[in-house]
């Protein structure tokens, strides 16, 4: 198993190295114009510059703060509504068309509205992240509550559970398995929301850095911004995977 993991890691590095070499090589051979696609060495240098000068940290911190707030608020709202509707089929049927309608609205269209409502600061970005995270969490919670195994419910009731105990011991854990398995998706959405929000109008954040670079046709800056974002996502998502494995440890 450990051997296999090592082999997979080696292959991963290979794939990355081949792609980057290809990129660098094609630019070097003048097949690609560095004005449009930059080159890996320049991008790496830029990322190192940013890190060493420390200029990137405040942007990164802003983006992470917005994402985290978006994730927390969106989850809280989505989970509560999912739970309420899961427990009340009548309410679910009444609200169903509205939820479908809201979910169909492209969030990019909402971003300028949020800017107008919440200003250029972090809250317009948080709102955008919330609008994305909310639906993932809502649908998963709703599904989890409704899909709670009938036999588990009956068994616990026969063992003497009150309605509240039923919710606590069966319905919540059942929904949590769905919620945890969607953490990864929600986190991705939260970051997308934050970055897109910054991109459209902000004074700080990775999205702001990227849009500034684009404004001056600085492709190296654009790619460097994307690189930082990508690395952060990989690190955070590895953390989430670990958390998820611990929370769902009973699933062998």
């Amino acid at each position, binding site marked *: 198993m450990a051997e296999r993991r090592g082999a997979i890691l080696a292959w991963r590095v290979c794939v990355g190295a081949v792609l980057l070499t290809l990129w660098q090589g094609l630019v070097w051979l003048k097949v690609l114009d560095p004005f449009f696609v930059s080159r890996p060495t320049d991008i790496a240098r830029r990322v190192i510059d940013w890190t060493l000068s420390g200029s990137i940290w405040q942007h990164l911190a802003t983006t992470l703060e917005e994402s985290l707030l978006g994730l927390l608020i969106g989850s809280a709202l989505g989970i509560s509504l999912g739970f309420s509707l899961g427990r009340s089929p009548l309410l679910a049927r009444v609200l169903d068309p509205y939820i479908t309608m809201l979910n169909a609205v492209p969030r990019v269209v909402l971003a300028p509205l949020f800017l107008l409502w919440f200003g250029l600061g972090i809250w317009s970005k948080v709102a955008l992240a919330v609008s994305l995270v909310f639906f993932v969490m809502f649908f998963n919670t709703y599904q989890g509550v409704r899909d709670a195994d009938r036999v*588990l419910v009956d068994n*616990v*009731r026969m*063992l003497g559970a009150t309605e509240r105990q039923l919710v606590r*011991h069966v319905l919540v854990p059942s929904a949590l398995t769905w919620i945890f398995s969607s953490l990864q998706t929600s986190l991705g959405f939260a970051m997308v929301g934050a970055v897109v929000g910054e991109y459209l109008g902000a004074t700080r954040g990775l999205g702001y850095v990227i849009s500034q670079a684009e404004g001056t046709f600085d492709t190296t800056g654009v790619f460097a911004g994307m690189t930082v974002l990508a690395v952060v996502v990989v690190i955070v998502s590895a953390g989430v995977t670990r958390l998820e494995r611990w929370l769902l440890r009973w699933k*062998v």
Partner: protein
Amino acid sequence: MTAIEFDRVSRDFAAPDGRSYRALDDISFTVSAGAFVAIVGPSGCGKSTLLNIAAGLLAPSAGRVRVDGEALAGLNRRATYMFQQDALLPWKTVRDNVALGLTLGGVARPVAHARAAEWLGRVGLAGFGEHYPAQLSGGMRKRAAMAQHWIIDRGLMLMDEPFSALDVHTRVRMETELLALWEIRSAESLALQPSEIRSAESLALQPSGGRAQPSGGRAFQASQIRKTVIFVTHDLEEAIALADEVIVLSAGPSARVVARHAVTLDRPRDLMELRTSPAFIELYRALWGVLREEVARSQRTVEPPRG
């Protein structure tokens, strides 16, 4: 003393096409306290429906059920119900699962855990308390489920083909253990000794739940004898091997009781030997004559929805 009485119980279901479909039709029988009754019938005849009604999970469309003489309304709080499927909560450890009936009832966690540990030992799962259900084999999960239900000690035990998913050897072992648990009641070796009763709290923990009830005398006696068991199975051999009485249901729809047959084999029974004894074989022949017809009938009719 009657533990549970089915009084002209019928149950209808709405079929997918909107018409009403009668699963059980006018079922009447009584089970006396401390008896082990097996219900057999072809698959889809409504055996599970009957148990769900006895458990109070399902209301009869007509007729009524009386438990200890009282009409049943809502959940049957004097019964435990062991399902055919796995019903352990997958996110709780085996120990927490076994203790669940106690903790739900407000018993303090350390006390409940101590009792759960005792029961885990009794069903051969000592040392598995910290495992999650998914880490156990099918047979071990059944043992845990058995402990989960025996620990709360109610007078009536409903069992819906609890061992049908197990391989044949594990199954005989589980049947043997079930009988041992059930028969041991008369010897009272499961009861806590007075010295073990430490506080009012542990009153609710006594294996003979009847004693904790203020209504006293009669329940006291009944629980001192044995639990009443209603055991549903499609396997006639299993039914005869375990039960004092076998009730045969007809093929559905509109299943009725077509035969009741007392099983007079001596107890304690050796399930390994029993199946080849002449008395067992004779009983099997007599009952199979009835059941065979119903099975054939159920195969002629279109497979009805399962209840």
